[in-house]
Structure formats: C-alpha cells, structure tokens
C-alpha cells in the first residue's frame, strides 16, 4: 500500500512527472531559442513562471461557470498523471501493466484536450469560445491518424499492452524499422495534440489573444500550464515506448536511456516548432485527413500483411 502510494505520488508518479516536465519545458524553450539564434531562458525559468502564477490574483469571470471553471485544470492534470503510470518508463514493464493499457493511455490523453475545450467554452469569452471550437476541430483531425499510427506497431506485435510491445520489439529489434512511416505520422499528429506550432490554432496568440486560456489567471492557469508541460512529457514517453522500446533491467541505466530517448523526441518536436509557421484550420484538417490518415492506414495494412509473412 505504502509502496503503491510512493509510486503514484512521488516516483515515477506525480512529483517526478512535474519536476521532469519543468525541466522538459526549459529544454524545449532553450532549443527553440538557440535555433532562433537567441540566448534563451535560464534553467529555473519554468519554475519561476509556475511559482509566480501561483502567487498571482485569481480572477474568475462573472459569466463563467465557476465550478467547472475551477475544476477543469485539476481534471486535466489528473488524467495526464494517470496516463503516465501506464507507460513503461525505465523498466521493460510499466507500474501496473495489463492487456490493453495502450488504449487506456490513448483515451486518458484525450481527456485533457476535452478539458481545454470545456475550459474555453465555459469561460464565455469570444476569444476563448473560438479557441475552444478550434481545439475540438483539431481533435477530430489529428486524433485518428495519431491513434492509427500508435496502433500499427501494436498490431505487428500482436498485443494491446505497452509492455508486450516492448517485449516483442526487444526480441526483434529490426522490425522497428518497419514502423518508420507510422513514427513520422505520430510525430506530426502529436504536434496537434500538444497545441504546438504549426498546429497551435487554438492558442494562436496573434489572432485569439491566448485562445482557450484567455480568461484563466493565477493558480488555475499555473495548473493548466503545468498540465500542458506534463502532456508533452507523457506524449514523448508514449512515442518513445512504442517506437523506440529500448529498456534495461537495471533502474539506473533505464533512467539514462529514458531521458535520452525522450530528449531526442523533444528535439524533433522543437525542430518542427521552430521551422514551421502556423497553418490555417482547414489546412490542418486537409493535412490530417488527406495525407496523414492514408499513410497510417497503409502502415496498418502493411503490418497486417507482414504479420502473415513474418
């Protein structure tokens, strides 16, 4: 019981996730700044931002639904922290592995997006409402290719559990090369999931002020920011667990491998963020449905055929 609580709340659960996400945010911003030939933030910058927001006055708009408005940041944070528990991080097995945890993680990761939509909707501000609608439009476009791309390797491994995928691919490491198209699709689609450039339509600072979070201030905004950073960590861990399942039996080596893998994924994501500009919403829908979904579908068909051959 105590051990379980320790795992869930401290390591590798909530507290570790928060600390690592602040570090992740720093690395992301630093890479972004260095690629733009800037100096970039100092290492404690995300922590300073978080503490400052905690200490600021919290304003709840008169027309907003107060209960939901204050409840949503916590729900999104909780969903992300729960998803983290089911991903194999340092060891070949996750904390609580069961058959089908891949599906559970994917659906837990959808909850924050729905929370962002509701947050915008219940703020009852014009900017926030447009941002919320865009969040939902985005959800309908990237979710399908992302799910299909993440399920393709699982189909080849003939299992719905993340630990099973790890076990399968450590026996046949070369089969990982077959999943490269799915990997590319997942990387592009998760930029949409994480609301990052080129798919940051719901936050679009120049047109929508800050989109969904326009009315959030103080500690609720702090928790939302933390949740977004944590989502970045969880999605990178998930992609690392599905496409680069390299794990070691020793905990220390496992941590080193995990950090290197996630930082590699973060570097790719930051690179995309730097070199792209924001696209329009209908361009995003076209991109996801016309290009990403067929590639992911082809990958699934190819994997099904290969499974018969291999």
């Amino acid at each position: 019981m105590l051990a379980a609580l320790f795992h869930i709340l401290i390591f590798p659960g909530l507290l570790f996730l928060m600390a690592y996400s602040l570090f992740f945010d720093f690395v992301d911003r630093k890479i972004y700044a260095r690629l733009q030939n800037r100096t970039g933030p100092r290492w404690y910058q995300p922590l300073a931002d978080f503490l400052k927001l905690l200490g600021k006055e919290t304003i709840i708009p008169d027309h907003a639904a107060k209960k939901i408005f204050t409840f949503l940041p916590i729900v999104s944070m909780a969903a992300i922290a729960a998803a983290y528990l089911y991903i194999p991080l340092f060891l070949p097995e996750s904390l609580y592995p069961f058959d089908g945890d891949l599906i559970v993680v994917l659906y837990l990761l959808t909850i924050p997006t729905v929370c962002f939509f509701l947050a915008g909707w219940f703020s009852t501000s014009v900017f926030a409402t447009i941002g919320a609608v865009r969040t939902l439009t985005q959800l309908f476009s990237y979710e399908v290719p992302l799910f299909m791309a993440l399920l393709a390797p699982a189909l080849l491994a003939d299992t719905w559990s993340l630990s099973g995928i790890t076990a399968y691919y450590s026996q046949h490491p070369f089969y990982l090369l077959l999943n490269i198209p799915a990997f590319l699709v997942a990387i592009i689609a998760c930029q949409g999931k994480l609301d990052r450039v080129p798919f940051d339509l719901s936050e679009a600072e120049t047109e929508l002020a800050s989109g969904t979070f326009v009315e959030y201030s103080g500690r609720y905004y702090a928790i939302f920011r933390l949740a977004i950073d944590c989502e970045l960590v969880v999605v990178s861990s998930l992609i690392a667990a599905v496409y680069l399942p390299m794990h070691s039996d020793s905990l220390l080596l496992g941590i080193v491998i995990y950090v290197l893998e996630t930082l590699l994924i973060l570097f790719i994501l930051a690179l995309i963020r730097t070199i792209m500009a924001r696209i329009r919403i209908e361009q995003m829908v076209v991109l996801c449905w016309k290009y990403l979904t067929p590639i992911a579908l082809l990958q699934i068909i190819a994997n099904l055929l290969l499974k018969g051959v291999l």
Partner: protein
Amino acid sequence: MTKTFMERAVDWGRRKSPWIIHFNAGACNGCDIEVVDALTPRFDLERLGMLQQGTPRHADVLVCTGAVTLQTRDRLKQIYNQMPEPKFVIAVGSCACSGGIFDGCYCINGGVDSVVPVDAYLPGCAARPEAIIDVVNKLLKKWEEKQKEE
C-alpha cells in the same frame, strides 16, 4: 513580519518572470517598433524571463506607449482592470509620460498617468530597446527591495 518559505519563493518567481503585455494607447508606432524590437533575437527578453502575452489576464507588466486619446481611454482602463494583482504599468516614450507633443490636443486625454497609475516612466522619442529592458529590470528591483523592507 517574517515571510514564510512559500511567500519568499513566490516573490522570487515574480522577480524572475515578468510577463509583459503591450498596449498602444495612440502612439505614432515608433515606440511600438522599439518594444517589438526588444523581443527579437538581438535583445532576447526571454533570457531575463520576460515573455509577451496575448491577454491581460496572464500579464504582470503593462507596457503602454503613446499619449492616451479619448478613444483609447476607456479601453486602457478596462485592460488595466483585467490584469490580476500584483500589476505594474510602464509608460514608454515621451508621449506616454506626459502627452509629449500631442499634449493639449483636442483628442488627447494626457499621459498614461492621467488614466491609470504608472510605476515607471521611460522618456525618449522613441525609447530605445535597451532602455525598455532596463526599466523593467529596475522596476522589479525596486519592488523587490520594497518587499524586503516589509
């Protein structure tokens, strides 16, 4: 009165992460270009923790340029009221400080301090980006010293 650890941590965070929002109250665009200039790679405000925010709800420092016209007066007041405490206002440029060459014009209300309380004045036509960075830094330093005294 001694402060708890958490209060001191929040004070430290405030000092290290001033988020700014830029408002043009009727400037000729000269100072606005300089404010935007301060955010570009050459000056890189992010190394000091400053980020430009799109909404007043997330901002700590209102960087206001230009003499306040009758048209923008109410909007400036509204934006100031939308910002959560603690908040600071910086008047950037001669017009924002006093009304500048537009002072006494039929459509001008006056400097920024004729509408909202101003914490720091930065004269110049237009104010240099180095000066904008310096004024935010000095403002926070002064505020930090005041916090320490309390």
